C-alpha cells in the first residue's frame, strides 16, 4: 500500500506533456493581468 502511495506521489508528467495540467488561476498570469491593466488604463485615459 505504501509503495503504491509513493508511486502516485512521485509521479510528475514530462515537460510539455499534454498530461501537465494547471489549476485555473494557480499559474503565473502575468500576461493576463498585463492585458487587463492595459485595457483599463486606456479606458481611464480616453475618458
Amino acid at each position, binding site marked *: 500500500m505504501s509503495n503504491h502511495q509513493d508511486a502516485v506521489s512521485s509521479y510528475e508528467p514530462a515537460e510539455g506533456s499534454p498530461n501537465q495540467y494547471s489549476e*485555473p488561476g*494557480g*499559474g503565473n498570469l502575468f*500576461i493576463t493581468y498585463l*492585458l487587463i491593466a492595459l*485595457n483599463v488604463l486606456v*479606458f481611464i485615459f*480616453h475618458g
Partner: protein
Amino acid sequence: MIIDPNGTVHIKWGSNYGPLTLSGDPWRLITNVFIHFGIIHLAMNMYCLYIIGSYLEPMLGKTKFITAYLCTGILASLTSLWWHNESVNSAGASGAVFGLYGLFWRCLLRILSQRMRERPCCKISAYLLL
C-alpha cells in the same frame, strides 16, 4: 462618457473605423482591441479575459498566449471590416477573447483525442459527453 460612449473620441484613440483603417491607418486593426465603449463593455470583456487567461496562459506560456491574443484580435478586426459593408466604428477585446476561447476548445479537443488513443475507455466517455 463612461456610460455613454462618444464615437469621435474612440476614432481619435484608434478604433476600427472602416474608411480610415482601409485608407492608410492599418494600425487600427490592433489598437481597437484595447479600446472599449463604456464601463460595462470593459468590465464584461476583462472578466471573460481573466477567466480564459487563468486556464490558457499556464497551458500555453506567456509568449504563445500574448501572440494568440494579438493574432485573434487582428483576425477579429479584419472579419469585422469584411462583414460590415457600411462604415462601422468598432472596438473592444471581444474578438480577441472569443478567439482565445476557440483556441482553448481546440486544446481540449487535442487532449481528449490523445486520451482516447491512450485509453479506449475514454472513448466511451467522450461519446457520452458529445
